[in-house]
């Protein structure tokens, strides 16, 4: 079978390799029961990728259902306010369901249908992937079960209601920290039990091979569009691309198209929570006392863990970034120094959220506000002819309760 692989930077090996490794990261650390299912999924995915009919149906639905291509917007007032680089926004918030998550959900649901699997399980943190999964299952007539931590259900209520309206069964998860990590664990347990009939529609570029590859490919439409749009609207490529990184699917989707453009700096922004020094964060790369290479949910990557290898509970104001590990390709890009990773705290994300509302008339998702926060820090240091492209991965309607509560508590 012909493998779809890509080059990262000049002289770098193609990733992932046949075993799903991005350098020393990735792989497939799962119970034996799932190995045949992952083999089947890998084979079906490469077949679909090579099938023009599959690609045509995906492209058709992206155009007529998801609303692609999403535009890029020049953030004129934000750029003037910050007084440095020109800031452009890739508007994934304008995709159907309000976030980039639909790109991957649509691709995987078409694949599941092609594999004859009519039952879908998914995990969700912020609810955006759960909503996207429920949406595509309604569209394609598939049965949908979404696992969601009970803490996340409380802070993302509108999305819980949306999923139910779309016909999905939302299953609360009360184990562990009752957030995204625990929802993934529970979804994997369901998949192990019902593997013959069920596809696990994993929502980020993590988990066992082929998920990090497959999710990256389905999300890479973001960067492919944005790169062409920058050339068309600004006449050149951006100097910097910025995206928030939870599992890292919107970031890898943006970065992938720019991987060989060596003059384009790639910056991922992790959730700094209450500050890296507080230990209450989801900054896998920024806190060497807690973030080390390890194995969680089937993949080897950076993992927040204690000295005994137990997974740490994380904190972020943003449910979608509140996860103890990160997609293996990000660990690889960081090791190669092709991408750099910074943090934005809860407070910095909130300030960026308000700024974008006031200056651009856009209510961003709290996840995306972390990427905006990095642009707020960086743009004033750059000359006026510099260009910064920020992936606005989702819209913030789901976060209004959280933001209102945080603003009321603010001194």
């Amino acid at each position, binding site marked *: 079978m012909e493998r779809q692989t890509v080059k990262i930077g000049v002289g770098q090996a193609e990733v992932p390799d046949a075993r799903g490794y991005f350098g020393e990261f990735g792989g497939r650390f799962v*119970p*034996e029961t799932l190995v*045949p299912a992952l083999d089947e999924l890998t084979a079906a995915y490469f077949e679909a990728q090579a099938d023009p009919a599959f690609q045509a149906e995906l492209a058709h639905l992206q155009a007529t259902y998801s609303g692609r291509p999403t535009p890029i917007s020049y953030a004129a007032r934000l750029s003037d306010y910050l007084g440095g680089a020109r800031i452009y926004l890739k508007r994934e918030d304008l995709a159907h369901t309000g976030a980039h998550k639909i790109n991957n959900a649509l691709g995987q649901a078409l694949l599941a249908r092609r594999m004859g699997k009519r039952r879908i399980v998914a995990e969700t943190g912020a609810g955006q992937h759960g909503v996207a999964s429920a949406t595509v299952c309604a569209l394609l007539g598939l049965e949908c079960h979404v696992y969601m931590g009970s803490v996340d259900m409380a802070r993302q209520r509108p999305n819980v209601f949306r999923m139910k309206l779309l016909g999905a069964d939302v299953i609360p998860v009360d*184990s*562990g920290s009752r957030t995204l990590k625990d929802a993934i664990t529970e979804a*994997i347990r369901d998949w192990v039990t019902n593997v*013959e009939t069920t596809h696990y529609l994993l929502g980020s570029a993590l988990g066992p091979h082929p998920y990090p590859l497959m999710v990256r490919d389905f999300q890479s439409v973001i960067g492919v569009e944005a790169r062409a749009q920058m050339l068309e609207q600004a006449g050149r490529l951006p100097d910097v691309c910025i995206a928030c990184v939870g599992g890292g699917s919107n970031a890898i989707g943006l970065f992938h198209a720019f991987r060989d453009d060596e003059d384009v700096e790639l910056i991922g922004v992790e959730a700094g929570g209450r500050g890296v020094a507080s230990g209450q964060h989801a900054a896998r790369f920024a806190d060497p006392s807690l973030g080390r290479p390890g194995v969680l*949910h089937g993949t080897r990557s950076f993992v927040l863990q204690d000295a005994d290898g137990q997974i740490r509970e994380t904190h972020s104001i943003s449910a979608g970034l509140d996860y103890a590990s990160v997609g293996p390709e990000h660990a690889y890009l960081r090791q190669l120094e092709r991408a750099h990773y910074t943090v934005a705290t809860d407070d910095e994300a909130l300030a960026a959220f308000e700024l974008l509302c006031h200056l651009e008339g856009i209510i961003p998702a709290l996840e995306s506000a972390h990427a905006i926060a990095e642009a707020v820090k960086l743009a004033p240091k750059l000359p006026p002819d510099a260009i910064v492209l920020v992936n606005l991965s989702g819209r913030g309607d789901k976060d209004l309760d959280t933001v209102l509560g945080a603003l009321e508590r603010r001194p």
Partner: protein
Amino acid sequence: MSGARETTGPDALAAMFARARRESRAAFLPYFPIGYPTVADSLDAIEALARAGVDGFEIGMPFSDPLADGPTIQAATQIALENGVTVGRCLDAVGELRARGVTQPMLLMGYLNPLLAYGLERFARDARAAGAAGVIVPDLPPEEAGPLAEACAREGLAQIVFLAPTSSPERIALVAQRAQGFIYLVSVTGVTGARDSLPLDLQAFITRVRAATSTPLVLGFGISRPEQVQQVSAWVDGFIVGSALVRAAAAGVEAVRDLALTLRHALDEA
């Protein structure tokens, strides 16, 4: 030096299966986690199981995200973590159990990440020094097992591999080739936990594996009742009971011992 340290893990397991075979029965390998309900209680429970005549042990080491385990073992190992149990504490427990006269082979069962944090080579060395016979890591398929397998081979520890009802003939051949000690057969597609009945196609799955290998087969997941033990005793070389014993432990060490005795007697009557 005790005898347990001089023989290798695979040798100790082979002797265990030979003894059970002479008695025309399968070997009974209970699972019990260190640290549930307390460290002291778990050591007492394992000692009581040893005296009840079980053949070997799967000694559970806790992990925060045990994705192959059902609710009973999840809850018990969460309590073990709250009781401060680490990989190091589990290794000490094996040594303590040896000192208390437990002679049966003990296999350490735990997820990969705590072992990586401890260091795979150090873990294998300390496991052997403590008197363990082998290691069972449910989230480590053979393709990823290289470093642990090498460390175990150096120390004479068996690294146990799994097969599941979903395994293809090619997969069965591949896994059987790497097996040491025994092959752990997962009885159901699912997580650990007591079940009312075993799957109807279980015997066909066991027959498929049996045709491909002469390595002893040990069945786990879902076994809790005397009639299930009698049913599988003729099909496999050994079986594991976990969740049912863990559930019994909530009522005290006596309840663990009584369930083990009931299952052990059922085995003799099979």
